[in-house]
């Protein structure tokens, strides 16, 4: 599957809107979340921002919260990147990648990041 293809697949989904290298996914309760897709030689790396540093100010132990969440996660994880943003990430190997698998990862990542954003900030900004 190549870059063109993944966009094509997402376009046919009612809850996913393609916007350049990003997709915007409709989550539950009318919320939405943005995911950036980056292609490497043998995989796609999907990243979503949970919250920017400004929103994380005043919240204790963000790193530890991320780690605790990761303990029960499957297929994706959270971390603070070197810009202080709380991000969620996953990856999809190109070999044998199907539309179903790709969409599953997109939706999972969006749902989990949105969920985390809601609990930390109460907002829907990302």
């Amino acid at each position, binding site marked *: 599957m190549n870059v063109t293809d993944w966009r094509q697949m997402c376009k046919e989904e009612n809850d996913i809107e393609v916007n350049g290298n990003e997709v915007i996914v409709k989550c539950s309760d009318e919320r939405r979340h943005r995911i950036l897709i980056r292609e490497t030689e*043998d995989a796609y790396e999907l990243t979503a921002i949970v919250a920017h540093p400004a929103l994380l100010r005043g919240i204790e132990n963000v*790193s*530890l919260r991320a780690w605790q969440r990761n*303990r029960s996660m499957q297929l994706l994880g959270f971390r603070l990147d070197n810009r202080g943003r709380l991000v969620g990430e996953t990856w999809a*190997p190109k070999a044998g990648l199907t539309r179903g698998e790709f969409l599953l990862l997109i939706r999972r990542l969006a749902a989990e990041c949105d969920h985390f954003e809601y609990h*930390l900030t109460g907002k829907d900004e990302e």
Partner: protein
Amino acid sequence: MIDIDTAKRLLDFGARIGQGTRANEQLKGAVAIHNILEKHGIAYLADEVGMGKTYVAIGALALFRHYKPDFRALVIAPRENIQRKWIKEMNNFAANNMLFPDLRFGSIERGLVRKPVFCSNLLDFVHEVIMDPRRDFFLRITSFSLPMGSDPDSWFRLRDDLLKELPWLPRDAFSLRSKDAFKDNFAQAICCAIPKFDLVIVDEAHNLKHGWKSSSARNRILSLALGRPLENGEKLLFPSNGFRSKRVLLLSATPIEETYRHLWNQLDVFGLGGKYDELRDDDHTDEEKKEAAAKFLIRRVTNAHVAGCDLTKNQYRREWRHGGVSQHDNPIIIEDDRQRLIVALVQKKVAELLNSEKFNMSFQTGMLASFESFLETTKLKRSDEEGNFDDSEQTDDMDEREGIDVHDINRLSRSYREKFNQEMPHPKMDAMVESLRDSWKTGRKSLVFVRRIASVWDLKKKLDEYYDDWLIQHLKERLPHGAQKKFRKIVGCYKKTKQKLDTREEKKQRVNRVGADTFFAWFFRGDGPRGVVSGANIQRRFIQRGAVYSTFFEENHVMTLLNARAGGVLKKLDEILGIGLAKLRKELQRNSVKYLSRTEKYARADLMDAAQAAALELLKERGKEIKEQAGIIWNEIYQGSIRKPHADEAPDVSEWLEKPTFFTEIRQPERAELRAMLWPEPQNGAELEKFRERQIRAQLLATAARLGHSLIDLYILTINRLGSIDLHTLESSSEENESLDLKRINEYLDLLDNQRRTEKSSRTWGAFDELSEIAQNYNLILDVNLPDANKKPLVETARYFGSLLRQQQPVGGMTGEVNRTLVQQFRMPGYPLVLFTTNLLQEGEDLHTFCSSVYHYGIAWTPSSMEQRTGRIDRVLSQTERRLSSLKDQPSGEDFLQVYYPYLEDTVEVIQVQRVLERMNIFLRLMHEGLKIPKGDCRAINVRASLISERRIPEPIQERLESSFPVQDYTIQGGKKQLAVEREAMEKSLERFQSFGDDYLPGLKIQWEQKPEKGRLMGTVKLSNGRIQPFALFLRSEEERLVARCISPIGRVVLCDIGDIEEKSAKTGFVRIGAILSRDDRSYDLTVEDDVILAAPEYDMNRISRLIRKVVEQAENMEQLHFQSQDMPVEEFEENLAKEGEDERD
């Protein structure tokens, strides 16, 4: 909607209870409940007590999750002990009742795919659900009570704790105007935090029968937290509030008391009453209401199959409704004139009280102290103090909660004591205790419910005295002549100790009776008297590793494996190994070093273990035909016992291979019949499984023999051999040789064999009876008490059993909070034989395995409570059921389940008994032949009215019961004819995964471990820099897809370092770090982990190698960055990596 034949291909309810009617009913129930929930969004499972409602509910959940892997469930139990029971049963269900692991409900390891989360309170629940909502959550209803004192600081603390989880909630949203407003807001805030659950299960849902607007704030908070909208146009506090339960399943054997309104109220808590308004509407007839309820409610009745007939519960219970406890259907006879006068005097006082203006000849059912005791009852000091009776919320009146007759009874009691220097006798209490005094002679267990909290301890104390009399006499008759004088002195010393405790209790001083409540506790447990060979002293000799009898209950695996006898083991070992005896001794000595610690003096049991391990090491390498068996034994028992650091040198351990033990000798042909009863050979399974079962059975037997009633026989035997109980006698016989060991063991086996051959009726209950009952019910005992025993390493199971069977007491008492150990012990043969309890054990606890008698010493005010109580011993696989189902002839009264209602005739008590029994009969009719509405609230009894009306104790209903709410055919027929994943497909998936360990993975040099487990592979990668990195691979699932998880260890840290490492590492790129608590409980093994979905099989190698490469490279980078440590081989981490895969991680 699912079809029952389809469900049968996934679930097996007969796996633990046996195939048959019961299992079929549970399957039908699970399918019906699933389909009713799909259709109506609400279902009520109202099967009679003990029919396995929990299992039916779990079965329904398993069906939902099979088709929808992300199905979310929340279970609300009544109490903490039942919360834990639910989690235990979920695990049991996944382990035993799934025909194959579908990777949706059941995992490869026969556990749960979705981990159960125990939540202690609402804040805990919020925290856990935020962490990961993709799990199953277990709450208790008492958590919704939100304890808040009058001090506002406690309110702020509650609010602040919630804000830590949801930092964006506005502080001022939590009203401080009133407690009620605060609680409402808090509940709505909880609603914000939690997701929508696909299914909410409420156990013992009758606790919600007064609805969400009742005086109980708990119901309201539960309702609001689950998103029930407010009424009267009140706005929701937070925009994200809304219904959180897509489907609701209610469970209760007693869904109503007097009216269908109770049913409607329960639905209304979840906002679901609207569709069934006729249930609360007086304009509708009973038949119309029944029809409405039948849409969502099912109820089945218990059946016991006895000698070709099916009996419903009313037919296999023998009720003692005429108050007596000695002869069926006879009342308690008061023969003593003084006692009759006392009873008359008390009745006069009670009548005077009731005649007062305040009470107007009425009282709360079960809440007169004089019904239970004439001993002094504590006066309540404050109005918010719990009453003297359980269920004191039956009334709000302070006097009634204390017991309106307490003051007068206390006065009489004091006066009597002053006059006669003894406690005022209570004929009912005395009759009760008298009827139980043979419990330790027969081994018969009894469960006794009281209302007056202090009655638990009053009854226990009286029965303990009878026990002491019996035990002291029993020992006196059996100890040798040389021990008698000293024994009399010991008894005198014990009685003095007891008297001191009694005096302090009378002075209302705090007294800790533990260790001295009975002669057994004082003499056989704990410290025991000094300077003599006490029971405790003998017990230590069998338990302490350096003590003289420490190898008595050990297994001599080598002797058994070689089929040798004591004195011939070394010779046979040499015949197999062929290296000569001298060389053999040297090799054994050399091999044993690593199994011994650095110490000056080695314990006997340690030397024996070292000898066994050393010999098995040789046999597993060079043992020819017995190589494999030797390997199994060594792996299971001795592999983990290598010491670090270990001794530098070892003594010659070869003599320890010649030690006979209980288990080598019971294997001898002449003991075959005894062995079949005490330690039967496992029949099923592969060699490893049989070996494990044999070992676990041995450990259970050994532990029971040393810790409970059986210890008495062991003690008597030992003292008879010594001839005295002087301590120096024991020490002087500490020189040991094999023939003395053998003699000792055979004496014990002879004792057990004699007991086996002697009719129970002509002797007292002994060690053989206790141990054989354990052996014959092994699977049941493990199931109800020790479900993890099969999963634990064998080296840990002995400790596990020890903690279960410690501190046994012949008579148990329970108030306040559930004593888990006591409950588990009651579920086994042996002590405690009698358990006195308040309503604490009324719901949810299984006490049926070895008990067939229940006494309602203090009567409950609702028929449902009475039914719940009896239901504790009337359940699937109860002792009664097992006994009845094995009968060939028609049962006699003694064979039935015994239900006692002790009371004194010609007292006010008889009126309340009559009332409750009448209502129980009505309750039975309501549930089985249609629902009628009786009149009036019967908590309070009007004595005058009752005395005028005819006094007649209603007889139990004898005709067969038929449910009014059977499972209807349409509820078990459905369109879903296929499972989402079939067994064969799952097995193929597993094979596919296991094959990764056989195949070459591109770009990786892997050394795979040779002993792969199902769904788990371990190996080591050789990296390009020459270093090695171990890893583990696990098979998981994500919705309908297979997932491979890879974990690689980095190093060991303490907790405070984890955050630092996580932060530094995360900034350099995506890496997921795990941590497993190590055995020492002080440090963590850090890991790197990642997952990949498995696509079409032809891409497996590519994906798996990419995954492993990614993880081990990240792990190697982390190791270099944070640890600069030496490479550790996979064996260092193997145990913890395996735990990681099973999600036993922090």
